């Protein structure tokens, strides 16, 4: 059983033997990347917008999932809760993609050569797939949860899994700064 550090080192080796290094160097030579590198506040501003978008996406998703778990938004249907918060989750995900792309362009080598960055991306893809599957399943069973205190057990498990996955993504995002490259 390889340790997590060994997995990171193995991933790093794999990245170095791929076209990623060349691509990251090329992006780093583009005018936008050079401009952001020369302006001290560009990266902190983009990161702040990224964090604010995480706040919007995470909390709006959290409110829906807490409602499914029966520990939030009491006294209103899940349908209304979803209608209120879900558009914010998706809009914020759009903002996360834009600011995230901006951060990759600003520091392509730091991000793209970093195994933790790719682990985070994989988790994000996993979250989006799980979220879509979950939404479809939830709609199909709308009748059973529309007025109940919380969702059925599989629904609750899905809601908990989405919250945990979100926390994992935030962890991975912060650890990009610390992972051995």
């Amino acid at each position, binding site marked *: 059983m390889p340790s997590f550090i060994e997995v990171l080192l193995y991933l790093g080796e794999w990245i170095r033997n791929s076209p990623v290094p060349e691509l990251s160097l090329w992006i780093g030579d583009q005018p936008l990347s050079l401009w952001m590198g020369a302006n001290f506040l560009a990266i*902190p501003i983009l990161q702040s917008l990224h964090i604010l978008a995480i*706040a919007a996406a995470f909390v709006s998703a959290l409110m829906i999932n807490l409602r499914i778990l029966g520990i939030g938004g009491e006294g209103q249907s899940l349908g209304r809760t979803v209608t209120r918060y879900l558009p914010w989750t998706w809009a914020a995900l759009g903002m996360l993609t834009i600011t995230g792309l901006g951060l990759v362009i600003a520091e392509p080598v730091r991000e793209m050569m970093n195994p933790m960055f790719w682990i985070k991306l994989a988790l994000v893809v996993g979250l989006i797939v799980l979220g879509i599957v979950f939404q479809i399943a939830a709609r199909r069973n709308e009748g059973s949860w529309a007025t109940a205190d919380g969702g059925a057990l599989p629904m609750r498990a899905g809601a908990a899994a989405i919250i945990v996955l979100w926390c994992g993504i935030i962890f991975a995002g912060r650890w990009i700064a610390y992972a051995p490259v």
Partner: protein
Amino acid sequence: MNPTTIAQWLQSSALGDYISASAWVFPTIESIHVIAIVTVVGSIAIMDLRLLGWAFRDRAVTELSRDMLRWTWAAFALAAITGLLLFISRAESYIINPYFQWKMALLTLAGLNMLFFHLSTWRTVANWDSTAAIPVSARAAGGLSLAFWIFVVFCGRVVGFTLGVYV
């Protein structure tokens, strides 16, 4: 006891030493701090947007406040504890960092704004709980809160780039 002495004492304490000496303790606490902060800021922003009348108008102000507040406070407690632990590890550098000082000042302003809102404007909430006509004082409280918290996040992020620069 001046602040610098306290900072020195905190930093050289066993706990301060433990956090700064380990390769993974600081990043782990920091990650939990980020999860706590996005929960605080996100849940407060929902209330702020409601007070501004810009969003979530299908839910009464008092109901939305009840939906949010327990999570806001729970997450704030977590953010304060993890923030204090991060602070202890390099207290001397944090305390003289202007962005850290601004962050603390903005947190205080956000707290005072909330306190004033709850002691004054909130008393009339029954009159505008579900109506479109939200009083100017409530809108102002929401707008100020949103601005304060956005700059709290920004200053906090810049601290990460400037810690040690001012030593």
